[in-house]
């Protein structure tokens, strides 16, 4: 009797926990697109089918375990074959599976329809950040982790959106069909935002497609969902959905900001200016592999502090930053960083952490080199 009570208590607890789980956001989010609602209702249909099957199967099992136990003098039956029973309990799951496949296929078909998009965004995964390019709009930027190193190491209190915040979110207009074209510069990443019901692999050498039509303005957060190396946990996705007018304003602001950043290529930069800018760029882009103190993580990520071959050969140093190292983890930064940033970061690397080359590179030299290369 006590055993039965334990079972009943267990069954009741799990039944009671279901609404609690649904109310506490432990369930899959409903999301903010028509497609995400379809996917949510698919999820719930299949969830309840599983609950019903589970109750029937485990109910029958626990009942017979209890009712026909040895201590009550139960004697085992002698039958051991029954063709029609076996046919029936094979046919029923088959029908359930077909029944689940019908609505699932309809949703899948809709998911794959990327035609007639209003806006195309190229999403490029890089170790360990996302790069967004608004095709036809001449707007492109990199979205880095916004959480500070101090929060990660525990020196600072963790913020509300710990590891789910970026320096520059992907801004999208609501009500528009946005087509996402996903690829990668290095390893396989996966762009995942639960509220948009999008999880799509970004694979080097491939362009995968997906689409969203966001219905409510807001900030939607996600993460990289394919193990992509050391900082896989530190490359979140943040999407800011805004009204169309705000989006148009933002595009204009964004273009102006890009023009401003590119300005200053022609003027002479002082050592202090380059070092200051270089430190920012290094912290955002280089430090995850080469470490904030330049000590690297040999043998995969070489140390930059005290790296004599690098200090001896300025030209090789610039070339490595611009074009990367083929067959190794070092990416090419010619399309990710502008001339000012490349000049600043190279100068910084040659004069920080006890490196005392004393030499510097001017943004104009880098711009010239980039222009030569693209010819």
């Amino acid at each position: 009797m006590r055993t039965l009570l334990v079972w009943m208590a267990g069954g009741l607890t799990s039944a009671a926990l279901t609404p609690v789980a649904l109310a506490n956001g432990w369930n899959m989010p409903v999301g903010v697109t028509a497609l995400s609602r379809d996917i949510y209702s698919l999820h719930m249909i299949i969830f309840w089918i599983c609950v019903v099957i589970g109750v029937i199967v485990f109910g029958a099992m626990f009942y017979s375990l209890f009712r026909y136990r040895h201590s009550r003098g139960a004697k085992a039956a002698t039958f051991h074959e029954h063709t029609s029973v076996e046919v029936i309990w094979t046919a029923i799951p088959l029908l359930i599976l077909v029944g689940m496949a019908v609505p699932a296929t309809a949703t899948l078909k809709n998911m794959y329809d990327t035609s007639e998009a209003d806006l195309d965004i190229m999403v490029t995964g890089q170790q360990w950040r996302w790069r967004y390019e608004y095709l036809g709009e001449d707007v492109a930027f990199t979205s880095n982790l916004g959480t500070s190193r101090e929060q990660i190491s525990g020196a600072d209190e963790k913020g509300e959106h710990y590891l789910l915040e970026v320096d520059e979110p992907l801004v999208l207009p609501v009500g528009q069909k946005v087509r996402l074209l996903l690829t990668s510069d290095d390893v396989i990443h996966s762009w995942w935002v639960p509220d948009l019901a999008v999880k799509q692999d970004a694979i080097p050498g491939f362009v995968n497609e997906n689409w969203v039509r966001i219905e409510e303005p807001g900030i939607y957060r996600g993460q990289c969902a394919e193990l992509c190396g050391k900082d896989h946990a530190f490359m979140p996705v943040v999407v800011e959905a805004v009204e169309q007018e705000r989006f148009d304003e933002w595009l204009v602001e964004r273009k102006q900001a890009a023009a401003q950043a590119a300005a200053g290529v022609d003027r002479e930069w002082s050592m202090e200016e380059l070092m200051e800018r270089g430190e920012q760029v290094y912290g955002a882009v280089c430090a995850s592999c080469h470490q904030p103190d330049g000590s690297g993580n040999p043998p995969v990520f070489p140390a930059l502090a005290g790296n004599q071959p690098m200090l001896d050969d300025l030209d090789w140093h610039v070339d490595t930053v611009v074009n990367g190292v083929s067959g190794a983890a070092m990416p090419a930064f010619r399309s990710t960083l502008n001339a000012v940033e490349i000049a600043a970061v190279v100068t910084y690397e040659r004069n920080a952490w006890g490196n005392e080359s004393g030499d510097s590179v001017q943004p104009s030299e880098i711009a010239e080199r980039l222009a030569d290369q693209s010819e």
Partner: protein
Amino acid sequence: MASHLPPKPTPQHSTATAGGMAEAEHPRPSGLMRWLLTTNHKEIGSLYLIFSLTMFFIGGIFALVVRAELFQPGLQLVRPEFFNQMTTMHGLIMVFGAIMPAFVGLANWMVPLQIGAPDMALPRLNNFSFWLLPVAFTLLLSTLLMPGGGPNFGWTFYAPLSTTYAPPSTTFFILSLHIAGISSILGAINIIATILNLRAPGMRMMDMPLFVWTWLITAFLLIAVMPVLAGVITMMLMDINFGTSFFNAAGGGDPVLFQHLFWFFGHPEVYIMILPAFGIVSAIIPTFSRKRLFGYASMVYATA
């Protein structure tokens, strides 16, 4: 049926306790050499089970490191690069070092007993396939001490994270997986040979216990898919060391090809790890409920 029996076990042998005659005929080495040279299926079965338990604890310790780090948000105990090595090694060791050898060990113990055979069909091969495993896993574990650390790309080791962007020790990881794979294939050959040739006179296939059936299917699966795994890791080896571009998009290769090849192995691997367990359940439940298994024939068809 007698014509199907191999010539070696004479009627005398089959009535004796398994391995009993061998003890009478040969001097029996003691100490370490006894275990190193044993051809007795029960001793080899015990070796497999002890090895599997050891690996289970090592893989379990790695899992504890992972969970301890995740006990609260932020970096506590280990660096991200070491964390990834722990998750990867945990997966590899549990799959290839704990679960698979545990079932081979149970097969070594139970299959000859359940079909009335004096031993496995190929006892020396049996010894060899076991002793490959400690070599493979010593090599795999030693990568943790190499410069750049051990495998850090997940137990599915998707390229190009496991090729172009992998630590230098990856070549050793590939070699150790090759050795473990050879061990699995040899073990599977032995089990198939035993089940097909050494059944007691009069025992038909449909008379075999379900554990024997599930292991027969598992062994065929192993022979079908372990070579695919060997192929895919050899392609990785070529990409890393010999300048090929199987999985390198920049050289015209295809990272998705890796996933297709890997899961051609990986999907059957799931059944390799669960089928023998189904067989065990099908033996335990009828025993303790004192009732013959319901639907033996359809269980066999479902397994096959």
